[in-house]
C-alpha cells in the first residue's frame, strides 16, 4: 500500500507540475526561446471579435469554361497534326465535347485523344463519324480541388493587403472557402476586396535602375509623405492605396512608363513584414484572359518540377513578340498588383507551351512548392472563379469582451454553488470533492492550452457544465460508501468498496456523454466544435481528479494524518 502510495504521490505531483507549465503562458509573458509550451489558450472569433465569412466558389462555371477551352485546343491540335475534322464543339450544356469527323479520320482522332488526353478525357458515345467526350471523374476531382485552391490563393493575396493579423483562409467542404478575420468588426471593406475578380498581368522588369536605388527612392517618398504600408497602423495604408500613392510620388523620379510593385519576401508572412520592390514597365497587353492553362510539369533531364503554361492563339503571338524583344530580362507575373514571381526570359518562346524552370540548389520539396504556387497563381488569372458570399458572421469587440466576462462570472458562481452544495451535503468529504473540482478546472484549462484548442462561448458553457458533471462521480462514490457503511463496513472497508463498486457506473456515464461530445466535435461547426472539445477534455480530466485524486487525498489522510474516518 505504502509503495503504491509513493507512486501515486509522484503521479499527482507530476501532473500538477505539468499542468502548471502548460498554463503558464496564459499568465506570464515568457521569453522567446522558452523551453516548454509557449502558447496561451486561443479565443474563438465569437469571443475576440472579428469577421467570419464563407464564400462559395463557382466551380461549375469554371468547369464549363474549361470544356470550351479544351474543345478549342483540341481543334488546334487536329489542325497541327493534319487530321481532318468537321467540328469540335462543346455540347449545349457545356458538359461534353462533341466531335464530328469524316469516317476516314476516326482512328487518327482516337489515337490522338488516347495518346495526349488519356488522363483527362474519355469517350462516352461513339459512331463512325462522331464522338462525345467527357472529363474523367478523377480529372474533374483534381480540377475542382485546383479551382478552390486558386480561389484561396487569390483571397490570401488580397487579405494580406488588408493587414489583418492571423487571418484564416482555408477550404471548407468541396467548394467553399472560409475566411476568418480576427478584429475586423465591419468587413465591408474586406468584402469589397475579396469580391473582385482576379486580375493577372505579365510585365517586364525594367533594368534602367538598380534595385537598391529604387528602394532608396521608396524610403524617401515614404518619409516625405509620412505614410507606410500596413492597414490599421499609424499612417499606414492598405496595399492598394499605398501602391497608388507611392507611384504618384515617384513619378518623374523613376523612368517614364514604369511603375513600382512589390513581391512578398520568401520568408515573410505578410507583405508588410518583408517586401521586395520591382520596377516594372507598363502594360504588355498580355493578361490572364489570354492564358489557357498552367500546371506543374517535370524537366525531362533532371525530373525537377517546373511550371508549364499555354496561351490562346492571340496570346501566343503576343507572348512570342514580348519574349523575343526581352531576352535575358525578367518577366513579372503580377496578380492583383502584387508580383508573384519574376522568372528570367531565356529565349524567344514561340511554341504551344512555355515553361518556367526554377532555381537549382534547393531541395525537391521547396522547388515543388514554388512550382505549385506559380501554377496556381497563373491559373487563378486564367480561369478566375467567381465567389459568392454564403455566410457572414460578425462579432464586435465589446460583445466578445462582455460575453467572456459573463462567462467567467457564471463559471465562478457555478463553482461556488456546486462546492457549497457538496460541502453542505458531505461535510469533509465535500471539501475533498471541492478540492478535486478545483483541480479539475485547473487540469481542464491546462489541457486546452496544451491541445492548442480554441475557446469559444459554447466552449465556456462546456467548462461550466463539466464542473456540475465532475462531482457526479464523487456523488456516486460517496453514496456507495454511505450504503456500505449502513451495511456495517468500517470506514476503510467502505472506502475501498465504494471506489471499486462505483467505478463501472462512473465509466459508463462518462463514456456516453463523451460520445455526444465527439459527435458534436465532428459535425458541429465553429463555436459548437469548441463545446465538443471542452466537454470531452473535461470528462477525461474529471475522471482523473474525481477518481484518482480524491482517493489519493483519503489515503493521505489515513496514512499520513492518522484520520480514522471522514464525515460523509
Amino acid at each position, binding site marked *: 500500500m505504502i509503495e503504491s502510495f509513493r507512486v501515486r504521490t509522484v503521479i499527482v505531483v507530476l501532473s500538477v507540475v505539468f499542468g502548471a507549465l502548460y498554463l503558464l503562458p496564459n499568465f506570464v509573458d515568457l521569453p522567446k526561446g522558452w523551453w516548454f509550451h509557449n502558447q496561451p489558450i486561443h479565443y474563438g472569433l465569437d469571443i475576440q471579435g472579428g469577421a467570419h465569412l464563407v464564400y462559395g466558389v463557382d466551380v461549375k462555371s469554371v468547369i464549363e469554361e474549361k470544356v470550351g477551352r479544351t474543345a478549342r485546343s483540341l481543334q488546334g491540335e487536329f489542325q497541327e497534326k493534319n487530321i481532318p475534322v468537321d467540328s469540335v464543339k462543346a455540347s449545349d450544356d457545356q458538359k461534353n465535347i462533341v466531335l464530328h469527323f469524316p469516317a476516314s479520320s476516326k482512328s487518327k482522332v482516337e489515337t490522338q485523344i488516347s495518346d495526349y488526353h488519356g488522363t483527362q478525357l474519355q469517350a462516352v458515345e461513339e459512331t463512325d463519324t462522331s464522338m462525345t467526350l467527357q472529363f474523367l471523374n478523377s480529372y474533374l476531382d483534381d480540377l475542382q480541388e485546383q479551382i478552390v485552391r486558386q480561389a484561396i490563393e487569390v483571397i490570401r493575396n488580397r487579405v494580406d493587403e488588408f493587414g489583418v493579423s492571423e487571418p484564416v483562409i482555408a477550404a471548407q467542404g468541396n467548394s467553399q472557402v472560409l475566411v476568418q478575420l480576427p478584429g475586423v468588426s465591419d468587413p465591408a471593406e474586406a468584402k469589397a476586396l475579396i469580391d473582385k475578380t482576379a486580375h493577372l498581368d505579365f510585365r517586364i522588369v525594367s533594368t534602367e535602375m538598380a534595385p537598391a536605388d529604387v528602394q532608396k527612392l521608396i524610403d524617401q517618398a515614404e518619409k516625405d509623405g509620412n505614410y507606410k504600408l500596413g492597414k490599421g497602423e499609424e499612417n499606414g495604408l492598405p496595399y492598394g492605396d499605398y501602391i497608388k500613392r507611392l507611384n504618384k510620388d515617384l513619378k518623374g523620379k523613376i523612368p517614364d512608363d514604369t511603375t513600382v510593385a512589390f513581391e512578398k519576401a520568401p520568408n515573410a508572412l505578410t507583405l508588410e513584414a518583408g517586401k521586395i520592390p520591382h520596377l516594372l514597365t507598363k502594360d504588355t497587353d498580355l493578361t490572364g484572359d489570354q492564358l489557357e492553362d498552367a500546371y506543374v510539369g517535370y524537366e525531362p533531364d533532371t525530373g525537377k518540377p517546373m511550371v508549364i503554361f499555354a496561351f490562346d492563339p492571340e496570346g501566343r503571338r503576343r507572348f512570342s513578340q514580348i519574349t523575343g524583344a526581352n531576352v535575358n530580362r525578367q518577366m513579372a507575373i503580377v496578380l492583383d498588383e502584387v508580383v508573384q514571381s519574376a522568372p528570367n526570359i531565356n529565349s524567344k518562346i514561340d511554341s504551344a507551351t512555355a515553361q518556367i524552370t526554377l532555381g537549382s540548389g534547393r531541395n525537391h520539396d521547396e522547388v515543388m512548392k514554388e512550382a505549385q504556387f506559380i501554377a496556381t497563381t497563373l491559373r487563378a488569372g486564367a480561369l478566375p472563379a467567381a465567389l*459568392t458570399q454564403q455566410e457572414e458572421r460578425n462579432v464586435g469587440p*465589446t460583445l466578445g469582451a462582455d460575453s467572456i466576462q459573463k462567462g467567467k462570472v457564471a463559471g465562478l*458562481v457555478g463553482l461556488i454553488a456546486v462546492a457549497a452544495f457538496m460541502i453542505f451535503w458531505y461535510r469533509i468529504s465535500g471539501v475533498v470533492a471541492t478540492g478535486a473540482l478545483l483541480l479539475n478546472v485547473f487540469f481542464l484549462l491546462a489541457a486546452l492550452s496544451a491541445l492548442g484548442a480554441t475557446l469559444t462561448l459554447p466552449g465556456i458553457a462546456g467548462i461550466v457544465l463539466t464542473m456540475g458533471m465532475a462531482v457526479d462521480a464523487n*456523488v456516486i462514490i460517496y*453514496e456507495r460508501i454511505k450504503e456500505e457503511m449502513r451495511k456495517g463496513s468500517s470506514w476503510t472497508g467502505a472506502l475501498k468498496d465504494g471506489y471499486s463498486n462505483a467505478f463501472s457506473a462512473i465509466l459508463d456515464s462518462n463514456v456516453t456523454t463523451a460520445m455526444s*461530445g465527439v459527435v458534436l466535435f465532428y459535425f458541429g461547426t465553429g463555436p459548437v466544435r469548441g463545446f465538443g472539445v471542452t466537454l470531452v477534455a473535461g470528462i477525461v480530466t474529471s475522471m482523473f481528479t474525481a477518481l484518482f485524486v480524491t482517493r489519493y487525498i483519503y489515503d493521505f489522510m489515513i496514512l499520513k494524518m492518522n484520520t480514522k474516518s471522514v464525515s460523509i
Partner: protein
Amino acid sequence: MAVQDFGRIDFMKVSKLNAILSLVLTVLSFTVIYTKGFDYGVDFAGGIEVQVQFASPVSASQVRDFTTSIGYPDASVQAFGEDNEYLIRVGMEKGKDAEEANRLLNETVGKMRAGFKENFKDLQPNIRRVDTVGPQVGKELRNNGLLAGFYALLMILIYIGLRFDYEFAPGAVFCLFHDCVIVLGIYALCGLEVNTQTLAAILTLIGYSINDTIIIYDRVRENMPIYRSQNLWWVANRSINDTLSRTILTSGTTFITVFVMYFLAGGVIADFALTMMIGIVLGTYSSIYVAVPLVVLFENFHKKKVA
C-alpha cells in the same frame, strides 16, 4: 423471510398513471411539432440576425419603424435584456435562387448597417453582432445537425446494446426518445428558437440523461438475484429507492451549473442552458418513472408469451 421493505416511496404504484402521462405528453409533443413547427434560428432557416445596442433606451416600436422604413416590415424585433439592446431578424426571401438570395442578404446587411448609423445617429448605435446565413450554408447546417443527431443516437444505441440485454435496452431507448421529443415539443409550443445551441444541448442530453437510467438498471440487475423471492415489481421499487439519492444528487449538481449559466451567462450560453435545464428535469423523471416501469412491463409481457 420477514416482509421486506422496498424503501420509502412506492414509485411503481403510480407507474400506470405516469405511463399514461408520458404517452400523452409524447403524443402531444408530436402533434405540436407537426402542427406548429419550430421557430428555426438563422443558422437553420437562413437569413440575417443583427444585434444592436444603443447608448440610451430606445423603444421596440422605434426600431420596428426603422426596419419598415428600409423595406423590411416583416423583420422580427426583440428586446435583448435591457431596453437599449435589440435583436433584429430578417428571414430569407422565398422563391429566389441561391445566388440571388445570397446577394439580397448581403444587400440587406449593408442597408441595416448604414441605416442604423444614419437614423439613430444621436443614440450611438453599436452593431455588436451580425449573422448572415445563405441558403447553401443553412442547408448544410441542417444536414450536419441531422447527421449529428443520427450518429449520436446510433452510438448510444450500440452502447446500450452492448451494455444491456433485450429486457433493458428497449426501455433505455424509449426513455431517450421520450426526453428528446418532449423537449422539442416544449420548444415548438413556446415558440423558442431552435438553433445550433439547442441541437448541441439535446445531443449532450442524450449522452447525459442515459446515465441515471444506467445506474438504476445496474441496481435492478444487482438486486434481482439478491431478492429472489420478490417479484420484479418489488425489485424495481427497491432499486429506485436504493439509488434515489444519487439519481437526484447527480442531476442536481449539474442542474445547479446550468441554472447559474441560464441567469448569468447570457447570449448563446443561455439558450444552451435553457435546453439543458428542461432536459435534465425530464431525464431524471423518465429514468425513474419511464425506464424502470418499462422493464417490468417487458418482463411481464415476455412471461405471458412464454406461458
